[in-house]
C-alpha cells in the first residue's frame, strides 16, 4: 500500500497531465459528435460579444462591396415585386404572424430571419460561422443559413443571443443538392482543402453535365427551400468503376467575406421529423 502511494506521489505530475488530457479529449470528441459541450454555451456568449466588437470595426472595410451586393439583391427582389406583373400575385406575405394557410390555398413552408455574421473562418478543416441571433430571437438547431449569393450552412449550436453555424466548408456538412436543369439530386460535401470548391456526389452518369451548370438545393432538403443556388459546375470527374459522377463545384457564396445572412426555418420540420422517426422505431 505504501508503495502505491509512493508511486502516485512520484508520478503525480504525469497523472495530472493524463487527467487534463482526458478532460480535453472528452470535451473534443463529445463536441464533435453532438455539437454540445459543457462550457461552450457560456463561452459562445463571451466570444460572441468580443467578436461583435471586432466585427463592428472590420465592417467598415467591407462597406463598399456590401452595399453593392445589397443593391444587387434589392434589384433582384424588386424585379420579383407583384406590381411588375399583370396578374396580381397575393400568395406570398412576409409577415410572420399571419395564418399559416392563406386565402389562395398556398401553405407557407419556409420563413427567414435576417442575421449578421460576427465571426467567420475559412482556413481550418472544420469551419464555423457565428451569427448575432440566438434562441431569444427564434433560432433553433438545424435551421438552414443562406446569404444573398448562395447557401452558407446549418445552425449547429445556439446560445441565448448568438448561434454557431456549421459552414458548407466543414467536413461533416452534407447538403442535399440537385442539378438545376435536369433535377437529379445528390449530396454536396467539402474535402477540407480548397475553400473555393465543394464536391457533389451521387449524380448518375446518365446526366450530361457541363462547366457552368447551376447546382441548387434539392426538393428533398428539409432545411432549405428548393432551387437556392449552391454553386456552379467547375469540372466533372468520372471514375470508371462507379455509376456516379464526382463533380467539382465552385461555391456561389464567397465564404471569405460573408457578412449578412438569412436563417431559414422550416415550419413543417417537426412534423416531417416525427414521421421519419416513427418509421425508424416502429
Amino acid at each position, binding site marked *: 500500500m505504501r508503495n502505491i502511494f509512493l508511486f502516485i506521489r512520484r508520478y503525480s*505530475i*504525469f497523472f*495530472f*497531465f493524463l487527467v*487534463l*488530457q482526458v*478532460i*480535453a*479529449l*472528452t*470535451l*473534443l*470528441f463529445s*463536441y*464533435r459528435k453532438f455539437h454540445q*459541450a459543457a*462550457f*461552450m454555451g457560456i*463561452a*459562445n456568449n*463571451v*466570444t460572441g460579444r468580443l*467578436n461583435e466588437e*471586432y466585427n463592428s470595426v472590420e465592417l467598415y472595410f467591407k462597406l463598399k462591396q456590401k452595399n453593392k451586393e445589397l443593391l444587387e439583391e434589392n434589384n433582384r427582389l424588386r424585379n420579383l415585386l407583384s406590381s411588375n406583373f399583370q396578374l396580381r400575385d397575393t400568395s406570398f406575405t412576409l409577415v410572420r404572424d399571419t395564418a399559416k394557410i392563406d386565402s389562395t390555398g398556398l401553405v407557407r413552408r419556409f420563413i427567414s430571419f435576417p442575421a449578421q455574421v460576427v*465571426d467567420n*473562418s*475559412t*482556413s*481550418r*478543416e*472544420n469551419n*464555423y460561422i*457565428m451569427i448575432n441571433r440566438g434562441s431569444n430571437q427564434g433560432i433553433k438547431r438545424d435551421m438552414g443559413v443562406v446569404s444573398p449569393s448562395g447557401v452558407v450552412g446549418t445552425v449547429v*449550436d445556439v446560445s441565448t443571443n448568438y448561434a*454557431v453555424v456549421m459552414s458548407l466548408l466543414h*467536413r461533416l456538412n452534407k447538403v442535399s443538392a440537385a442539378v438545376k436543369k435536369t433535377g437529379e439530386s445528390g449530396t454536396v460535401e467539402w474535402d*477540407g*482543402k*480548397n*475553400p473555393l470548391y465543394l464536391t457533389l456526389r451521387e449524380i448518375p452518369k446518365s446526366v450530361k453535365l457541363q462547366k457552368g451548370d447551376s447546382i441548387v438545393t434539392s426538393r428533398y432538403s428539409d432545411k432549405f427551400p428548393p432551387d437556392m443556388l449552391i454553386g456552379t459546375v467547375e469540372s466533372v470527374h468520372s471514375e470508371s468503376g462507379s455509376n456516379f459522377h464526382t463533380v467539382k463545384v465552385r461555391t456561389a457564396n464567397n465564404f*471569405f467575406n460573408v457578412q449578412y445572412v438569412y436563417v431559414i426555418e422550416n415550419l413543417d420540420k417537426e412534423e416531417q421529423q416525427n414521421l421519419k422517426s416513427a418509421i425508424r422505431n416502429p
Partner: protein
Amino acid sequence: MSELLKNSIRFVVFLFVQVYVLNNVPPLHQFVVPYLYFLYILWLPFNMNRFAILVVGFIFGLSLDAYTKTPGLHAAACVLIAYLRPFMVNLLMAKDTSEFNYVSPSAKSMGWAPYATYVFVLTLFHNFYLLFLEWLQFGNFLYFIGKVSATTAVSFLMIMIVEMLFPRKQRFRTNTA
C-alpha cells in the same frame, strides 16, 4: 513589471493575435496554418511549478478553443507541450549554468542553438498532436505529414521572426535579487 502581470498581459495579447490576426489570414496553401499562440507557453518563467505550467497551458488552450469552437483541441496540444517543456529545459540548459540566472527561456538565456532546438522540438510536438487530433476524423496520411511539416516550418519561422522583432529584456539574476 512583475512576472505575473507581464505573463497575464501576454496571455491576452497572444490569444487575440492568434484569433483576430493569424486565424483571419487567407489560406496560402492547404498545408499552411499559421500557429503562433503556443509561444506563450514556451515563454513562461523557468521557476514556475510544473503543476502550474500544466494548469496555465490547459486554460490558455481552452480560451483559444472557445473562439475556434473546438473545445479541447488546442487545450490538449497545449497541455502536451506544457508537460514536455521542463524535460526540454533540463536537457538543453548547460549543467554548470543551470542555476537559471535568467527568468525565462530565450535566445539570450539559453544560447541561440539550444533555444532554437527547444522551440523546434516543442513546435513539432504541438503541431503533430494538434493536427493528429484533427486528422483522426478523416485519414489521408500524406496530407497529414505534409501539413505537419509545412505548419511546423511556418510556426518556427514566425517564432524566430518574433524573437528578432521583440527582444525581451532579460535581467541577469543575481543572488541578491
